[in-house]
């Protein structure tokens, strides 16, 4: 079959072999969970518990009346020790609920309950997704119920299941796709019921063959039409194939217009992890309190894919799981190496959107000094949204803001392809981000 892709992009070393054949390991429960109250794009949550409260696993601990928001639940049973600011991997210190685990209590058993999913209306499904606090688990963390709630007058024609997993090192989606193929398909059915799309696609990069074959087999065997009609498409392995706009372009050839959302042209993209969470929320009444996280890098002895509770800190994880750092990492990254965040401390919590924790040595993650631009245009060639990163950088350096706007700085998806490829090691994203910020400040957009 022809592998689909988008123009531009880069081929970093994918380094997935480290963890791709590792099983899905159940990680031990954390003794303390530090749960940031806001883990999504949108309005922050307020705590609904107070210090000293005894909480059950899965109990609501934070919520917000705002629409664009997703509630937070307690990942473990225990006592609320504190409500304080704690380190969020992307945002720095945010209000968090600190829960000490009650060691006498086992983890809750969410065996599949007798939920008659067939009988649920689209509104009921959205409600359950909302109550479970589901957010996009591929990285952006947009509340899923908001995405499913397609505004009046708009229609989703095409539902795309994002199994691209284009970030190097990460294998959490791969493992999920191979182990939870049926669950994901059931999740797809639920979402299809809400959206009633004409077409459903599952896109998987060709370096994840096992996941592709798992779906191929399952779709062939499927008896219900929604599932047997799914188009399973192999994607060429290229970064950032998993970007929403790139995936839509790869599969349909269409480009999402600037400033518009996929739904404006009839598309909706969901990551496989999110879809699995939708399945669990509806069929198992399980809120989003744990996720698969890839732990990898060249500094640790037990790389793998772990099912980890939201709120577990990196420090706790490596201690509890017997992970040994046999070499000093240069960087500890939450997420993938292309778009993830380097952490100053190990006291950061796993979030609903945390796909990976990487311990990379100096050999891999050293930041080389910036040199002069030699105008080789490699950055231009790789930009998936056809920007001119070198021109952006020059104009930001010169403070030529009208030109920065003219160069459509706002279209940058911050994928990092330009900075990855630049032979002069120019941190192009840093300049581009600065350009974006200045334009917002000057209200020039």
């Amino acid at each position, binding site marked *: 079959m022809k592998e689909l892709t988008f123009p531009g992009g880069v081929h970093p070393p994918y380094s997935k072999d480290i963890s791709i054949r590792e099983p899905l390991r159940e990680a031990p429960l954390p003794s303390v969970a530090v749960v940031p109250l806001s883990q999504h794009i949108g309005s922050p949550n307020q705590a609904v518990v107070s210090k000293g409260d005894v909480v059950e696993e899965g109990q609501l601990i934070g919520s917000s009346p705002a629409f664009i928001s997703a509630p937070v639940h307690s990942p473990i049973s225990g006592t609320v020790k504190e409500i304080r600011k704690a380190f969020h991997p992307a945002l720095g210190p945010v209000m968090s609920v600190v829960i000490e685990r009650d060691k006498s209590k086992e983890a809750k058993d969410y065996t599949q309950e007798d939920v008659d999913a067939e009988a649920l209306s689209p509104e009921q499904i959205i409600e359950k997704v909302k109550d479970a606090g589901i957010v996009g688990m591929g990285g952006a963390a947009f509340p899923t119920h908001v995405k499913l709630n397609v505004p009046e007058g708009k229609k989703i024609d095409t539902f795309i299941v994002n199994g691209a997993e284009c970030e190097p090192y990460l294998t959490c989606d791969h493992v999920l796709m191979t182990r939870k193929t049926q669950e994901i398909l059931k999740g797809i059915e639920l979402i299809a019921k809400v959206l009633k799309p004409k077409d459903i696609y599952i896109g998987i990069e060709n370096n994840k063959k096992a996941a592709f074959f798992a779906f191929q087999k399952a779709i062939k065997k499927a008896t219900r039409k929604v599932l047997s009609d799914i188009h399973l498409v192999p994607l060429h392995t290229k970064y950032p194939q998993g970007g929403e706009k790139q995936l839509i372009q790869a599969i349909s050839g269409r480009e999402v217009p600037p400033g518009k959302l996929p739904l404006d042209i009839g598309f909706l993209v969901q990551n496989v992890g999110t879809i699995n969470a939708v399945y669990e929320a509806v069929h198992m009444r399980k809120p989003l309190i744990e996720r698969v996280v890839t732990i990898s890098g060249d500094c640790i002895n037990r790389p793998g894919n772990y099912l980890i509770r939201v709120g577990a800190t990196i420090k706790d994880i490596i201690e509890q799981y017997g992970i040994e750092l046999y070499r000093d990492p240069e*960087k500890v990254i939450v997420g993938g190496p292309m778009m*993830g965040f380097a952490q100053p401390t190990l006291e950061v919590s796993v979030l609903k959107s945390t796909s990976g924790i990487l311990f990379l040595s100096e050999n891999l993650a050293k930041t080389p000094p910036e040199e002069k631009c030699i105008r080789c245009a490699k950055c231009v060639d790789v930009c998936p949204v056809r920007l001119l990163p070198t021109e952006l950088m020059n104009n930001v350096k010169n403070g030529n803001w009208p030109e920065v706007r003219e160069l459509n700085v706002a279209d940058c998806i911050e994928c990092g392809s330009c*900075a*990855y490829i*630049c032979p002069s090691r120019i941190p192009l994203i840093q300049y581009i981000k600065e350009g974006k910020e200045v334009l917002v400040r000057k209200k020039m957009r």
Partner: protein
Amino acid sequence: MKKLAISVSPHIVSPVDTRYMMKGVLIALLPAICAGVWFFRLRAVGVILASLAGCVVTEYLLQRFRGRKIRIDDMSAVVTGILLALVLSPAIPLWMAFLGGVFAIALGKEVFGGLGHNIFNPALLARAFLMAAFPVALTTWSRPITLDAVTTATPLGLAKFDGVMTPYADLFLGNIGGCIGETSSLAILLGLAYLLHKKVIDYRIPASYLLTVFVFAGVLHLVDADKFMPPLFHLLAGGLMIGAVFMATDPVTSPITARGRWIFGIGCGLITMIIRIWGGLPEGVMYSILLMNACTPIINKFTRPRRFGLEKGRKA
């Protein structure tokens, strides 16, 4: 544990850095250098060394004098020095080659603000300067494999002014009079293959440049085969190959957009052919590239890619 490093994403970078690129160019130049040295012996070695010395010493002194970081190790001056030597006659006095090197760096590069800021290809600019200052020395050619400067003419000159055709085998392998580096098309094509393979250059400029010359010459040859040389002759003779592979592709002075690179190559091809056919000179490669260098900023401006998400034909 030692202190963790913090920086913006991405956290990994491609192994291709500027040194890798410059090294790539130098390796790609090796066949041409070897061919030049093989055919012109010690004369070629002398010219290469003199030009190299001119470039490197000037770069060092200027950076030092202006209190800048010494960046000889970025190898760009070395590349310029070798490129200049390769487009000089093996018969040129060594001091002129040295002077050319000085000019290339001082006026070709550093006055513009150094690497990345120059508008013109420094090696070609220096050659144009030498050509203006010492026209006779620049166009005195020695026959291959002779140590004394027995003068001869280049295949293009022979064809244009005397109607004498040089055999293709000689053109291809390099047994002809001409600049040190342009003698063997084979050697340059080996370099091209290496540059493309290592992704040091993009295929668009050499492809469009060579194709334009081929088509242009082909059409003329079809019209009047007696008057106009066959297209293959135009491809193999003179400085076209080295120009298309090593000079026109200079990243600093060629367009950054993909469409711009097509236009640049086609423009180089057209100008080369116009000069070769109707101009007073046998050769047009150097001027074509320098002229297109001057157009690069404007080409960049008018070939900005279509904004993502906007349909073709619609304005951003």
